[in-house]
């Protein structure tokens, strides 16, 4: 009885890993690209480019496992990056600006959660609406223009590449992702809150009948998710050194794809933080590799699309 579940769990974890190795192997085949692709310097770049999507997937994994979805991520990232930049321009200290950025993210998550939990509405529709609301607010606050943020080392250094020819040191953002991923993996597996998320996603009615306060949990899930999206916005601000109301359009789709490639099911109940992180890495490696191979942009889009479908097909097979 234990054997099949152990092997299934192993397969669940190894599946995405195998995909990552496959993708890295694919680009290593080309002799002209290999000497540059398989270098510490390049992997530092890939990791840095993964940070924003990876932080997004931390929140999104939770939401998707609970059987929900959040389409407003890209807009929230843009809005919070604008909020951060404006706070800096207005002369607030960097820590206060960081607080505002995260608070706006969490606040939007709270609103999403209250509407979804309180009014029992479809997350798809609610967050689709929020996508427009947050994007519009970002444009309104910024006057539809980018907001140049003054030099603030604490924020700028989060994502700044230093020593571009070597693997270390990593930008601080990479370490933040590693740390948060470990925390979230523990939260999902070891805490009551985490087990509730799986229970709600697997069978909401059963969860309710066994005494879980489903609506309250949903408010919590979306709020924590929003907090992560605010953090992603902070990273976006750091990377661009400006707040951009048109940034990150369609980012939520990259994030959802990463979560799904990582083995989560859109119908809820399954998924893992580790898998989602690897999913995010696979997408970044694909982009990095196809840039360096000189493949045209449309090829990249097609390949990433095929990978997503392939990953979901694999998911079907292992059930």
């Amino acid at each position, binding site marked *: 009885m234990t054997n099949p579940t152990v092997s299934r769990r192993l397969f669940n974890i190894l599946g995405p890993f195998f995909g990552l190795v496959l993708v890295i192997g694919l680009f290593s085949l080309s002799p002209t690209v290999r000497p540059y692709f398989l*270098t510490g310097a390049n992997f530092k770049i890939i990791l840095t*480019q993964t940070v924003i999507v990876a932080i997004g997937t931390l929140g999104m994994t939770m939401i998707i496992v609970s059987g929900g979805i959040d389409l407003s991520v890209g807009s929230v990232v843009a809005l919070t990056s604008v909020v951060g930049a404006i706070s800096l321009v207005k002369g607030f200290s960097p820590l206060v600006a960081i607080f505002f950025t995260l608070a706006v993210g969490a606040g939007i998550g709270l609103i999403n959660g209250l509407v979804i939990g309180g009014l029992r509405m479809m997350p798809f529709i609610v967050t689709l609406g929020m996508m427009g609301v947050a994007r519009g607010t970002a444009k309104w606050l910024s006057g539809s*223009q980018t907001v140049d943020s003054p030099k603030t080392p604490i924020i700028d250094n989060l994502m700044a590449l230093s020593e*571009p020819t070597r693997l270390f040191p990593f930008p601080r953002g990479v370490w933040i992702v590693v740390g948060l991923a470990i925390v979230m993996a523990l939260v999902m597996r070891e805490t009551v809150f985490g087990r509730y998320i799986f229970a709600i996603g697997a069978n909401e009615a059963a969860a309710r009948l066994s005494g879980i306060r489903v609506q309250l949990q949903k408010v919590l899930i979306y709020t924590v998710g929003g907090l992560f999206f605010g953090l992603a916005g902070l990273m976006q601000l750091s990377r*661009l050194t*400006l707040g951009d109301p*048109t940034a990150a359009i369609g980012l939520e789709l990259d994030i959802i794809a990463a979560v799904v490639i990582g083995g989560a099911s859109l119908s809820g109940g399954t998924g893992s933080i580790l898998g989602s992180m690897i999913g995010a890495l696979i997408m970044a490696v694909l982009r*990095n590799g196809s840039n360096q191979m000189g493949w045209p942009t449309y090829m*990249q*889009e097609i390949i990433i699309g095929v990978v997503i479908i392939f990953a979901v097909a694999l998911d079907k097979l292992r059930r």
Partner: protein
Amino acid sequence: MPKFLQHLVLVGLSIAALLTVRGAESYTIAVIPKGTTHEFWKSIHAGAIKAQRELTGQGTKVEIIWKGPLREDDRDQQIQVVENFMARHVSAIVLAPLDSQALVNPVHNAILAKVPVVVMDSDLKSDEYVSFVATDNYKGGQLAGEQMGKLLGGKGNVILLRYAVGSASTEARENGFLDVLKGKYPNIKIISSDQHAGATRESAYQTSQNILNRFGREVNGVFCPCEPPTIAMTKALRDIGLAGGKVKMIGFDAGSQSVLDMKNGDVQALAVQNPMLMGYLGVTTAVKHLRGEKVEKRIDTGVALVTPENMNEPEIKDLLYPPFDKYLK
């Protein structure tokens, strides 16, 4: 015998020198536009290919990697492309930055990693790049101003319809235009110069109609600093029967609609940039720098004034209808 040896050594050395030169003369250059669908960027691509063919003809092997951001106008995506080519150790990068600030750090890193960067089309808030290859927009505006002065015979009422708030390139054109009129043609009165057309053709059309509604009876000439307002204003003039030369219309850039409007006599002059030359000079400047030659920090790719009289000359024709077929398959 020693003489023979000497010769042998000399021949050997020169062959070695030749070989090393040939060996070093092979470059991979990444050309990164702001987007890939607009005709303007296709012209730049064609220019880059033209440079590649010429250099290859001269014995310098050049490979061009043409790569825009995955999502057009997405700053983060363009940063990723720059970083990925930096890691790929291309010989040089030719970049049209989507943003004058957001791309500063990536360019700084590329230069740290010993990948020189030539900036084209739009400026970057940095002085680390090799050269800035772009249209001198102020000069382009001056050219349009001169033509307006000539067309109106030095007197009349002129409208300037601005493009958008915060767009540096069009503001330079607007300033060039106004400075020439104010300095050289004191009898020309600027009756409106504070209206912005906005980025879309629809908003430009509405603004044009509103301005003409107010000033339509007194206006003698109009200048628009880029393509959307040029097309919109011409249409608005046509609507109220002032097109066809009754009001002198000068525009900027050669979109296919504007060229058609000029053929029909509704546009009297177009100041036209040379994106193909921009792509060409971007690549050749990068190669010059790689060879160790000195290059200018600022290279002007010029603006030509196209009028109904000269629009059929071969040089102008190449500007209006860039020979894509010849360079892009």
